[in-house]
């Protein structure tokens, strides 16, 4: 990098060297400020983030058709523009008890391995831009019993938010037993 630094009169006119310098600086800046977009939401009173790249849409909770003998962490199926998708209750998978449907409740439709799944949440707060440096491994004891589901947390507004990974959530379905209906 120093070889391209402006050297004074002897470099005068060397516009290419200057362009190289700008490029190098730009590349470094991008590296330092790598960010991504996350959906900030609440599940059973706790805050989590879900990668924006997986989120497809957000809906008010309409009619959910229950499926007999389905696991307790699933709510049933809903219609989404001519498709029938499963709706899961992540709160059950996180050991936070079943989500009760309130006016603020939403279904976040997310994509996992090219299939759409709805997640019942208390509410969706906003979309946040987070830097890679804000993430760190989950502390011991964060949501006991759910170590597999939450691997990382992120610091936001002085809170520790769990990073929800849909694939992990879906894999853990079925281990919690079937719903009581």
């Amino acid at each position, binding site marked *: 990098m120093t070889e391209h630094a402006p050297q004074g009169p002897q470099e005068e006119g060397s516009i290419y060297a200057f362009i190289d310098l700008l490029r190098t600086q730009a590349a470094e800046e991008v590296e330092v400020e790598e960010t991504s977009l996350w959906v900030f939401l609440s599940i059973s009173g706790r805050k989590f983030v879900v990668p924006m790249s997986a989120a497809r849409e957000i809906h008010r909770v309409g*009619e959910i*058709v229950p*499926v*007999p*003998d*389905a*696991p307790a962490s*699933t709510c*049933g*199926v*809903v*219609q989404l523009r*001519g*498709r*029938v*998708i*499963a709706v*899961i209750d992540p709160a059950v998978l996180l050991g936070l008890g079943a989500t009760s449907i309130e006016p603020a409740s939403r279904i976040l439709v997310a994509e996992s391995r090219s*299939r759409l*799944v709805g997640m019942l949440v208390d509410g969706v707060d906003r979309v946040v831009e987070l830097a890679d440096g804000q993430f760190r491994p989950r502390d011991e004891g964060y949501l006991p019993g759910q170590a597999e589901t939450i691997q990382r947390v992120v610091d936001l507004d002085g809170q520790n938010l769990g990073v929800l990974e849909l694939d992990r959530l*879906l894999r853990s*379905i*079925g281990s919690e037993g*079937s719903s009581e*209906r």
Partner: protein
Amino acid sequence: VATPDAIEWRGREAALVDLGELLGHRSLRARSFAAVVEVEGRLCAIAIDQLGELEELVVRPLDPVLCAPAGVSGSSILGNGSVVLVLEPAEITIRSAELRRSA
């Protein structure tokens, strides 16, 4: 005339299938309606609350996370936009017979 396990339908005996019991809801045995279906030459009377209507549907499989029980073969969307689960009569009669044997 309904007996616990079968009804008579047009001079033939039809095994009574209690869908309510089979799918974990309340028992439908006391209901007065049954849909009579023929599966592999045997008649089955499936106790129901009420009949809807006849519709041509495109049936799609359910997401495996729902672990749908045998007898629920998929889902579909009715003309009015509502979602329905699709039952497989052959599976239902088999499960119902198994349930009766084990009871």
